[in-house]
């Protein structure tokens, strides 16, 4: 161990506790917000936080809510969100949030208190091996056993979380290290010889891509979250407007390309648009940019995009040839690759045009025909409030400019379908892990980061209830995060699959009160009142617009509990393991008997 010495910039060496050093390190990283729930093993850090003038400490009411709030913050800013919990159950409650950030490549710093280092391994009160437990779901993690390591560890943690393919980093900090005293030495640089976060493509690879494009007749771009985390949306738009290639995004890529653009086909996959799925699968050249060929996109991956030459560009080498072998794998930072492609196109005389694309007229005609034949649509009626109608109306009333978060399930898919996203970092959804309960705490985190923006969680009644306690954080901290609960009293997506695969036998998917079917249960108006949050229940379609108006106008947290039918299915749907040609478009085909359902692949 080296003895810390004062750096030349501080005239008098000052003895600080480990907790104070940690807080100082967070300040040096520019942290302005931390979501933190205290406990025995993290109290010293909380004490130090009360003395920080830079960092606002927000108190979630469950550590998982804190993790999702930090994710919401990170997803809208691109900077690492910071969450902290105590040892043992505090830490284990964070793990779902950490895993969620890992699957969606979100920069997150999770700090956990740990029992004092002499007690580690002794089965001490509130002890769990956080280092070991989080290993499979972090980009990197640390157990700090020497106070002198804190500045280096924190600097590395932020660097790792925020560069390359972003991800969560955990710092586990024993209580005796928090209470020890030392004079900190803050490093100016990080030294990680095994980590190169800035890979760039070779010129020859990019030339080869443009060469392939010359002979393509039906090219498509399939782009994902990498476009957003790589801050490459503007470069992508320019590339598209120089080449005229149509674009389908993944759910994670929503907002990475403006959905109102003439070359936009919205998103593809299990519940994506028919035209996006058709176009990608029938393309002859697929440019896969910042994607990972996830099974919810490809269905049966061997049959995905069978006829095309595939070029895959990603910052993470391990994604290349992982799920789908491709003809031209390119490891690169996306912003760098697209910038250089645009420069090459410019040199080749491919001018940028904002509209009237004419590079692939026959292909555009084919896509236009699909768009006409299979539009995203729903049967609108005045008898009930359709989920899709609620979302379309919200989109209209917010001019498509709100930040939208979701839970997981039918409402999430409809939100992706019926809200039109034009900008990156405006659609926050748990896509990879598919974590119910993500929506409202994420909305809180997003609103803290962007108080200038309208932030609305479009949620299901099942998902909303999973982190309902965060209404307290919103109310007490004065965070005007809004929520619309599309309340059908069921786990709608599971119900849909029961209809499709199990002859509509309901297996614990009803969330209401079976003893009193006329009653809406639970009563969200009463629950919200208990938290001091205004909530309206909307039963009739005619009342919806005014209610949304009041919600949007509110300067505080506000909840709309909108009663919707549980019988509605999310369509289109490509059942898992099937091909894009097996897409279900009509709801009468998505209710099968148990016998028919049993014929479906198990991958559903």
């Amino acid at each position, binding site marked *: 161990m080296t003895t810390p010495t004062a750096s030349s910039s501080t005239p008098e060496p000052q003895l600080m506790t480990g907790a104070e050093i940690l807080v100082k390190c967070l300040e040096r990283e520019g942290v302005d917000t931390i979501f933190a729930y205290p406990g025995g093993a993290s109290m010293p850090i909380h004490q130090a936080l009360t003395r920080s003038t830079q960092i606002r400490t927000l108190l979630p009411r469950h550590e998982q809510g804190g993790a999702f709030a930090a994710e919401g913050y990170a997803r809208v800013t691109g900077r690492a969100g910071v969450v902290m919990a105590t040892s043992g159950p505090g830490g284990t409650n964070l793990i779902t949030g950490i895993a969620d950030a890992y699957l969606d490549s979100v920069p997150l710093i999770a700090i956990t208190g740990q029992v004092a280092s002499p007690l580690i391994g002794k089965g001490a009160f509130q002890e769990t091996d956080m*280092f*070991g437990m989080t*290993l*499979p779901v972090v*980009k*990197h993690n640390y*157990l700090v*056993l020497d106070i002198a390591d804190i500045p280096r560890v924190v600097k590395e943690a932020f660097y*790792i979380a925020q560069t390359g393919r972003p991800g969560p980093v955990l710092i586990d900090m024993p209580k005796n290290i928090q209470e020890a005293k030392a004079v900190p030495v803050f490093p100016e640089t990080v030294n*990680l*010889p*095994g*980590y190169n976060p800035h890979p760039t493509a070779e010129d020859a690879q990019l030339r080869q891509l443009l060469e392939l494009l010359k002979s393509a007749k039906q090219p498509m771009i399939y782009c994902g979250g990498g476009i957003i985390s790589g801050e490459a949306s503007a470069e992508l738009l320019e590339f598209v407007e120089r080449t005229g290639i149509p674009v389908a995004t993944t759910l994670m890529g929503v907002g990475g390309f403006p959905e109102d653009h003439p070359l936009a086909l919205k998103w593809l996959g299990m519940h994506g648009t028919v035209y996006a799925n058709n176009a990608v699968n029938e393309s002859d050249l697929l440019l896969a940019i910042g994607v990972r060929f996830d099974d919810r996109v490809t269905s049966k991956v061997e049959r995905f995009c069978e006829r095309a030459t595939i070029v895959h560009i990603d910052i*993470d*080498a*391990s994604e*290349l*040839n*992982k799920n789908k*072998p491709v003809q031209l794998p390119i490891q690169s930072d996306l912003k760098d690759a697209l910038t250089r492609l645009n420069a090459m196109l410019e040199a080749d005389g491919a001018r940028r045009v904002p509209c009237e694309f004419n590079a692939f007229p026959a292909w555009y005609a084919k896509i236009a025909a699909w768009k006409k034949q299979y539009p995203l649509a729903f049967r609108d009626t005045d008898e009930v409030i359709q989920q899709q109608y609620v979302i379309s109306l919200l989109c209209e009333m917010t001019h498509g400019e709100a930040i939208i978060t979701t839970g997981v399930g039918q409402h999430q898919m409809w939100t992706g379908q019926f809200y039109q996203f034009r900008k990156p970092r405006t659609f926050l959804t748990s896509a990879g892990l598919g974590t119910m309960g993500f929506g409202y705490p994420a909305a809180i985190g997003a609103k803290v980061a962007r108080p200038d923006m309208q932030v609305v969680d479009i949620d299901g009644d099942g998902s909303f209830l999973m982190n309902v306690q965060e209404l307290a954080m919103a109310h007490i901290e004065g965070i005007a995060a809004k929520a619309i609960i599309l309340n059908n009293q069921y786990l709608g997506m599971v119900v849909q699959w029961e209809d499709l695969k199990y002859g509509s036998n309901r297996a614990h998917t009803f969330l209401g009160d079976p003893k009193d079917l006329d009653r809406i249960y639970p009563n969200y108006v009463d629950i919200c009142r208990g938290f001091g949050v205004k909530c309206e229940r909307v039963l009739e379609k005619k009342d919806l617009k005014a209610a949304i108006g009041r919600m949007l106008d509110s300067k505080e947290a506000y909840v709309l509990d909108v009663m919707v039918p549980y019988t509605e299915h999310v369509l289109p749907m490509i059942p898992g393991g099937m091909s894009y040609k097996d897409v279900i478009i009509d709801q009468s085909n998505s209710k099968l008997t148990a016998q028919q359902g049993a014929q479906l692949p198990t991958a559903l």
Partner: protein
Amino acid sequence: MRHTLSVLVENKFGVLTRIAGMFSGRGFNIDTLNVGPTLDPSRSRMTIVVMGDDAVLEQVTKQLNKLIDVIEIEDFRDNEYVDRELVLLRVNVDAQTRSEVMQICDIFRAKIIDVQPKNVAIELTGNESKIEKFLFLMEPFGIRDLTRTGKVAVSRRQ
């Protein structure tokens, strides 16, 4: 197919767990794994023998590279490296068989490192085929105990 990977890692807390966890979490199989210090005390070298086809090996290599503490990976191909394994074993002997065991040890340049009335302990180093052959020859006498280091390898280049 079996591949030998030489992996240079930072000698930091938990690095072995990270690597072992990556293998189990992603469903890859480790045949043998050996780890030890290098000339630079801040770094360790692991020699990992992996079962799998080229696609599996590509993923193993990339996933290893993705770990922050992994500095460098060498994928040893045929004839590009020399490898050895150290084996300690205890073999049953009696008055009749002792000399035969010693003779075989001589042929294989194995050392007898401990002698007991009814068994001997043997030290052997060699490549895989030599060790397999030796163990095959020892089997009829009765192998009571066997410890293997797993393969260590070094490049022929430079």
